């Protein structure tokens, strides 16, 4: 166990030899900056003032050449070898409501969502505490490193954690999940993480934009929105983008919500060929930001936007919101799926 001190403060925390500086700090309820937890987003940069660390990945895309020249590190990619002093600017917003903890969970249910997305449900011994929109890191048997997946269900006392996961061709992690893991098998779960969670106190309209397995956190947020008390005027517009007709999903789950087709509108779009092996698509076509452009029912100034999906989609939607509609950044929440 190493003692980690934040420079120029009286804050310190313990970090185990199998933990990252970031996660150990978050467990201690310190408001360390971060987003992705996997070395890609670059938000958790810090400077090591003293002590020795081991770096998981020297080539993490979250560090630019400029950062490397300045000797910066990513807290999510470092484990301490000795006591350390780290220089980092803590976030000013409130720390996470639920600091991440490590759990053992059992696979209890698998359901097909599309041809390449499945929902996996895991059972923990304690209540599943998280805020809709957050994610967890899964430690899969025989797989080095962890995988980040967003929860699709709501927090619950039954201890059920549900994830919608897209099979990655040649992906070692999803191969284990899809082909090797059987009901009753145990895996490690660390969470919750993530700041793109649902701000239920907002009275603005809600716009969810999802692509691929980004369906999961958006569905969790839509379910939470449905449950919260509303004036009756608020709207949820749920965009879902897929390449082919067979990629489109989400409608079946959203139909379960009482607001469906009244206050809740589902807007799917196909960006590639409209005919695939099994379906012909008669609905909207084009990338989601293009569909949003032609969609006249959105009140941009009075909506919160949540985005989850492939980086290209997320970027295009963000650019569209910021440049075409000057949506302030405090009304945009997104998870970058790397």
């Amino acid at each position, binding site marked *: 166990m190493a003692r980690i001190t934040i420079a120029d403060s009286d804050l310190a925390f313990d970090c185990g030899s199998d933990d990252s500086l970031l996660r150990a700090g978050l467990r201690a309820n310190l408001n360390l*900056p971060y*987003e992705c937890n996997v070395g*890609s*987003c*670059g*938000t958790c*940069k810090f400077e090591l003032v003293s002590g020795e660390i081991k770096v998981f990945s020297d080539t993490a*895309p*979250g*560090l*630019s050449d*400029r*950062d490397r020249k300045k000797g*910066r590190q990513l807290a999510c990619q470092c484990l301490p070898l000795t006591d350390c002093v780290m220089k980092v*600017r803590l976030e000013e917003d409130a720390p996470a409501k639920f600091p991440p903890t490590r759990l053992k969970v059992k696979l209890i249910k698998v359901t097909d969502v599309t041809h390449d997305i499945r929902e996996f449900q895991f059972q923990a011994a304690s209540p599943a505490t998280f805020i809709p929109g957050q994610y967890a890191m899964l430690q899969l048997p025989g797989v080095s490193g962890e995988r980040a997946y967003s929860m699709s269900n709501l927090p619950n006392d039954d201890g059920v954690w549900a994830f919608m996961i897209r099979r990655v061709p040649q992906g070692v992690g999803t191969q284990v999940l899809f082909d090797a893991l059987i009901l009753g098998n145990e895996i490690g779960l660390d969470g919750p993480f993530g700041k793109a969670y649902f701000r239920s106190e907002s009275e603005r309209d809600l716009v969810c934009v999802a692509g691929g397995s980004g369906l999961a956190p958006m569905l969790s947020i839509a379910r939470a929105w449905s449950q919260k008390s509303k004036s009756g005027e608020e709207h949820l517009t749920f965009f879902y983008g897929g390449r082919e007709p067979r990629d489109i999903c989400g409608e079946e789950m959203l139909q379960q919500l009482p607001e469906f087709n009244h206050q809740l509108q589902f807007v799917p779009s196909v960006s590639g060929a409209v005919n695939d092996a099994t379906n012909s698509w008669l609905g909207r076509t084009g990338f989601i930001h293009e569909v949003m452009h032609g969609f006249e029912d959105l009140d941009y100034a009075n909506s919160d936007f949540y985005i989850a999906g492939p980086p290209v989609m997320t*970027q295009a939607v*963000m*650019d569209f919101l*910021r440049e075409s509609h000057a949506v302030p*950044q*405090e009304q945009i929440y997104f998870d970058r799926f790397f």
Partner: protein
Amino acid sequence: MSASNSVETQDAIRLCQVADVAEGNGLQINLPERPPLAVFKIEGQIFITDDTCTHGQASLCEGEIEDGVVECPFHQGAFEIATGKAISAPCSVHLKTYQPILVGDDVFVHLDKVSS
């Protein structure tokens, strides 16, 4: 002809004087009903960008400036000042830049003329 009557500065907003901005620094300019601007002076040349980082609610005028690059004080994301290009994570959305209009010692800008 005085500056305020020239065609170039018609409808333009006067932000500051060139001398108000220290070399290698940024000056935050607060304007009514819009987010603040940053006026930078790099090797004597004036550049204007949005002041708020595209990633978090930070003022770039409080960031370090080096080799024509401004670094956000929050998460050390970075932008090229001349082009607004985001060059270091976590910033991925480029910064808006505006064409400065120099009339004598005064710096003006047309807010509707975004140069990138």
